């Protein structure tokens, strides 16, 4: 029982004191049982006040403190650290949130806010009176990191971690590395191609002995916790021997009778069942797509490297931290959205990038020469939530019209598309003759130095048009000719039309449609369905699941540089989890009162982390908690029929005194 307490009430520079009479709060709590001193302070979080607290605790031998300030999400760790510096166990400090939940929420009712603040501070005092000193649980942390996704982010993080001396397992679901970047040709702001970049990183990975690359590998199970994750990884074989003869393989590919749409080229071309994406794809030998293979055996006849005896294997990987770099999917427009899948000359931006990469000398698509290209921006991005009318579709004999229902669920801006499409348009103009680019935009967002690309494309004569938010452009197909119409903001709402040979839908980024890995790790997702970080500004690569970091476009739309920045940041964070070989964990976990427990097994059923085990102790079967697995969620608490389980720091007594303090009238 703590009896000598310090209470600090923060003005937060007016944020609190403008609505809460902090002096009154101080007066109302300074005579509470056990309160030795109560102070108000301008900024409790400032260095000076922190020093003052340390001094108070030391010189007065305080055995508990309460800080009433902003949300504990901001300063819990700050004041825990203050306690520790003063030699006070950090769990003897309790936080009262009188800003977000009092002064700001009740700025319309100052007396009410003050009264609530008093209640909350008293309740915190009640809690700290019962608080116990707790020591963190130390667990070993395996110095190894698993990276899921060998796109640009994952590869870059792997190299960095390896260089810091940390063994890495790089797990890629596809049979080739490089992710989306491998699919792009020239990249903006540099004169490198995606392939060159991927090749460079692949070579770097190959050079490092402490990186283990698994391709065709999928994580199927995850168990354990920070410091000690065990992943089960299913590896699909390539059915081709690693040391293979490339010459014969090409013949084998030619011989394969199967043709399926090529995902690498976003289905604008087909590939065989035995395939590779492009000549220097990594790893540099093909794979047999066993799902589409007819087992005709043609390839096997030509090439000795084909080996159908290979079998699917499952490996177990033990690591201390997991870094997620699972990337994004390009948005797929729905059928009829701006004529997608309705007109044969409407493609998405990724498809367009593949088309220009595949064309030599002359830009053609489906056998037709391309001169006028219309780019329609923000397809699948910046949509308003419902409301607008469905596309007007007046399909007469030879006239069809397609527009977009601008309602949708992706409210966010996909960030990379403006620059990406402008860069592609410039490249197209430079590489092919007689190209005219028409951009149907909703306001160009070439932020930062990317603005230079926009200027360049303007100077080269690209035409930019901008539609009104509620009035997207429409596409008309008449007698085989495609026309794009827009009411242009910049021409005083004049209706402008453009004859286009090819319509490119500038599609944004959406989260991976297959979130199985995410749910495996129970990673929370934000409103936009991308993985969510803990704090956007301060902890942008950490997740609420300890030991798991996120980076790249799986967290939200990013370009390559931004993805790599976040990958390197995530590498640092993951490294800090494992570099010391051990970790300290929060001691707030469940505990079983052995004298009360009569083992019914209900707690074991309730525990989502397998932290409850049945043991025999003193001739009696009881439940015990695995300290390093228990996350302290407390799901086992209400199910216990004999009330034998408590959560540390949330005991019945603590909860009840807190409730008492809140219920008590203020004199």
């Amino acid at each position, binding site marked *: 029982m703590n009896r000598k307490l310090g209470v600090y009430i923060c003005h937060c520079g007016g944020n609190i004191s403008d609505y809460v009479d902090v002096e009154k709060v101080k007066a109302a709590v300074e005579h509470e049982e056990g309160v030795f001193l109560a102070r108000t302070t301008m900024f409790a979080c400032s260095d000076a006040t922190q020093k003052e607290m340390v001094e108070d605790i030391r010189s007065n031998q305080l055995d508990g403190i309460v800080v009433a300030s902003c949300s504990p999400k901001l300063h819990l760790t700050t004041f825990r650290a203050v306690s520790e510096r003063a030699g006070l166990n950090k769990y003897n400090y309790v936080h009262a949130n009188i800003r977000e939940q009092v002064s700001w929420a009740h700025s319309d009712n100052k007396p009410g806010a003050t009264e609530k603040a008093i209640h909350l501070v008293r309740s915190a005092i009640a809690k700290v009176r019962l608080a116990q000193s707790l020591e963190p649980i130390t667990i070993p942390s395996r110095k190894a990191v698993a990276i899921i996704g060998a796109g640009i982010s994952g590869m870059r993080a792997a190299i960095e971690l390896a260089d810091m001396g940390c063994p890495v397992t790089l797990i890629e679901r596809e049979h080739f590395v490089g992710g989306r970047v491998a699919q792009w040709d020239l990249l903006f702001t540099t004169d490198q191609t995606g392939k060159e970049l991927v090749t460079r990183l692949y070579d770097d990975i190959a050079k490092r002995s402490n990186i283990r690359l698994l391709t065709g590998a999928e994580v199927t199970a995850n168990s354990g916790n920070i410091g000690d994750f065990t992943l089960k990884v299913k590896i699909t074989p390539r059915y081709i021997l690693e040391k293979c003869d490339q010459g014969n393989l090409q013949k084998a590919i030619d011989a394969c009778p199967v043709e399926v749409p090529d995902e690498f080229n976003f289905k604008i071309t087909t590939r065989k069942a035995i395939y590779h994406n492009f000549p220097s794809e990594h790893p540099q030998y093909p794979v047999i797509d066993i799902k589409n293979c007819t087992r005709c055996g043609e390839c096997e006849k030509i090439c000795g490297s084909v080996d159908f005896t290979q079998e699917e294997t499952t490996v177990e990987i033990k690591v201390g931290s997991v870094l997620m770099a699972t990337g994004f999917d390009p948005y797929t427009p729905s059928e009829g959205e701006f004529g997608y899948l309705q007109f044969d000359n409407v493609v998405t931006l990724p498809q367009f990038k593949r088309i220009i990469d595949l064309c030599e000398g002359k830009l053609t698509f489906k056998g037709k020469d391309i001169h006028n290209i219309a780019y329609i921006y923000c397809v699948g991005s910046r949509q308003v939530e419902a409301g607008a009318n469905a596309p007007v579709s007046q399909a007469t004999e030879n006239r069809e019209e397609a527009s977009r229902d601008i309602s949708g669920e992706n409210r966010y801006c996909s960030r990379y598309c403006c620059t990406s499409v402008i860069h592609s348009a410039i490249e197209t103009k430079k590489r092919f003759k007689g190209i005219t680019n028409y951009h149907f935009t909703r306001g160009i967002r070439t932020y930062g130095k990317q603005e230079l690309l926009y200027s360049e494309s303007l100077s080269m004569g690209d035409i930019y048009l901008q539609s009104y938010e509620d009035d997207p452009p429409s596409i008309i197909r008449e007698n085989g000719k495609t026309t794009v119409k827009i009411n242009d903001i910049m021409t005083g709402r004049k209706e402008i039309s453009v004859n286009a040979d090819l319509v490119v839908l500038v599609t944004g980024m959406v989260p991976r449609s297959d979130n199985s890995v995410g749910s495996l790790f129970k990673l929370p997702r934000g409103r936009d369905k991308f993985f969510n970080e803990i704090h956007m500004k301060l902890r942008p690569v950490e997740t609420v699941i300890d030991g798991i970091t996120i980076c790249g476009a799986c967290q939200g739309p990013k370009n390559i540089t931004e993805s790599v920045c976040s990958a390197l940041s995530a590498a640092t964070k993951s490294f800090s989890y494992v570099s010391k070989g051990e970790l300290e964990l929060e001691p707030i976990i469940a505990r079983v009162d052995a004298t009360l427990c009569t083992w019914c097994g209900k707690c074991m059923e309730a525990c989502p982390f397998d932290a409850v085990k049945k043991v025999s102790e003193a001739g009696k079967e009881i439940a015990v908690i695995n300290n390093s697995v228990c996350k302290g969620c407390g799901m086992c608490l209400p199910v216990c029929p004999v009330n034998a389980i408590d959560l540390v720091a949330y005991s019945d007594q603590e909860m009840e005194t807190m*409730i008492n303090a809140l219920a008590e009238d203020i004199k």
Partner: protein
Amino acid sequence: MAGISAKSARILVFSTEKISDPAIDMAGLLKLHYPPTVYTISVPCSSCIKPVWILHAFEKGFDGVFIAADGSDCTYGESCTDKTGRLVSMTHEKMKEKKLDPARLRMAAICSVCSEAFVKQIKSFNQYLLQITQS
């Protein structure tokens, strides 16, 4: 229950540290107002709330108890919604035994950005509680 509570009911809210508490924080940040007689105690997960705590609150004079549940966003697993639901119905049973109106315990999933939803819930709950306490 005198003073300011005349206009608003006393409500104890169980929020969760990672999901619903941030939403309640954000309600403050966005200056979405709700009655100041709404007090929050945050716990790690909404499925850890013991019925005895809720009953204790009623005993001590709270008009209502609101569980701002994690819902499907719970970081501890998807079973949270079920488990929270179960503990609520368990408590409802016990409330009936004690002749308490079960509607005085409410639960709703509040995601980490559901500030508006939270305030809406609380306002309607407050309305309801005022009605039953006045009649």
